[in-house]
């Protein structure tokens, strides 16, 4: 990955120096050990700040959309002849490119507005699994060497395998290489255990209705409705989200548990054919709600019913905006 990082910096520098992009969205070193945080680079001299390794968690497509739509809003106040285009460079691994594909399919911006710096991905460290592996200790320093992680804590040194702390969605990732890119950086990453993608969903489906409901209510009772999942999600970009809509008010804002359940049901249901399983919502959730279990079910059903994988190619049509005359009808009630 060292190699990828170097090349990435060079490419970003070149793009910025040639004025091909106005800003590059990437990752920089975080303030805590073994973390990375999104960075927006507008000056070619700052390109060395870019890092890329297993500590890069967030899906950057979110920021691409935010920057472009904010710019478009700002341009409304400018005289038509003085309006400028903004081109955004995005450091994108597989899931990020899929999110970009979805945003492009949904006509959020033109293809010319983004330059995709495609990078291969071996998965990222799940912050929650990482903290569990540390056993309550605080990391003071840390580094990733190949497939090993070395962490220095106050009590001493710890070493563990990278694959033990990889996020669940990364372990079974099907698209760990970019699906579209303008600049390809590095070699292709080796395939992951994609055939086990729906293992957990399959197991969950086998539980009884009551067991499933018990699990759902247990998970949703953790939710404090901070909406971090929505804010981190690259597919959640509505100007007015249904949770904040008041005319009419869609979801109640009380602490009553069904309000939270309805919120989560509906937010996840908005992800039909749009969730790329990037794990951003899971990683930002402060309460550790198991959202993936439910999102993955929608993904599985969309594949089963409509042979659709979210954001897999530019030619696909979002599954709920199209239809086939012979779509499955087994759920229809016939007395």
């Amino acid at each position, binding site marked *: 990955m060292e190699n990828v990082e170097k090349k990435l910096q060079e490419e970003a520098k070149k793009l910025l120096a040639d004025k091909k992009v106005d800003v590059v969205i990437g990752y920089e070193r975080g303030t805590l050990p073994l973390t990375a945080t999104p960075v927006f680079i507008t000056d070619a001299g700052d390109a060395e700040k870019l890092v890329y390794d297993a500590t890069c968690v967030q899906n950057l497509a979110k920021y691409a959309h935010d920057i472009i739509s904010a710019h478009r809003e700002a341009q409304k106040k400018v005289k038509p002849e003085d309006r400028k285009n903004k081109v955004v460079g995005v450091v994108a691994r597989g899931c990020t490119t899929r999110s970009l594909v979805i945003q492009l399919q949904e006509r959020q911006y033109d293809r010319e507005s983004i330059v995709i710096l495609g990078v291969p991905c071996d998965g990222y460290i799940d912050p929650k699994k990482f903290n569990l592996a540390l056993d309550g200790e605080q990391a003071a320093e840390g580094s990733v060497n190949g497939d090993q992680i070395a962490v220095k804590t106050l009590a001493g040194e710890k070493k563990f395998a990278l694959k033990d702390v990889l996020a669940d969605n990364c372990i079974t990732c099907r698209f760990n290489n970019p699906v579209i890119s303008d600049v390809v950086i590095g070699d292709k990453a080796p395939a992951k255990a994609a055939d086990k993608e729906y293992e957990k969903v399959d197991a*969950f*489906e086998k539980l009884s*209705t*009551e*067991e*499933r*409901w*018990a*699990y*759902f*209510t247990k998970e949703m009772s953790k939710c404090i409705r901070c909406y971090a999942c929505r804010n981190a999600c690259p597919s959640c970009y509505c100007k007015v989200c*249904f949770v904040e809509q008041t005319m009419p008010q*869609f979801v*109640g804002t*009380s602490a*009553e548990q*069904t*309000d939270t*359940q*309805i919120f989560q*049901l*509906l937010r*996840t*249901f908005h992800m*039909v054919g749009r969730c790329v399983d990037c794990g951003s919502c899971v990683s930002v959730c402060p309460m550790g709600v198991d959202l993936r279990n*439910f999102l993955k*079910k*929608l993904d599985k*059903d*969309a594949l089963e*019913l*409509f042979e659709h994988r979210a954001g897999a190619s530019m030619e696909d049509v979002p*599954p*709920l*905006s*199209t*239809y*086939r*005359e012979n*779509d*499955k*009808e087994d*759920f*229809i*009630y*016939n*007395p």
Partner: protein
Amino acid sequence: MADVKATDGWEPKIVAIVCNWCTYAGADLAGISRIQYPPNVRLVRLPCTGRINPFYIMKALQEGADGVLVSGCHPGECHYLSGNYSARRKFSMLKRYLSYVGIEADRAMFTWCSASEGERFAKVIKGVTEKVRELGPAKKLVKTL
């Protein structure tokens, strides 16, 4: 609706969200033809099944409906040509999803019923009422405040 308690006199409350052009007219025909069907159903008329936001179904369940029925024109007969096709996609996902999280599958039902099918409309309502009656009063997702 939420004040109904599971006592001996409990009767299921069913919200039927129907399209204006087929099922509503079908219900009309059932009425004109004096076909009897259970009075447990409350019809909500919408222009088309494609107009139905999945949220309406969840909201009905939250507000205390024991069952929700969605009915529109048969595929290929939509007044707006393709509204019910998109609805079919949406609801095939929704039905699976609701039962996945643990809500009984028969709480949310989907069917087609055309304007000439008064008899079928009565049959559907009878069937749905029976199914919901078997399940008993809704307890999941029901707002208690």
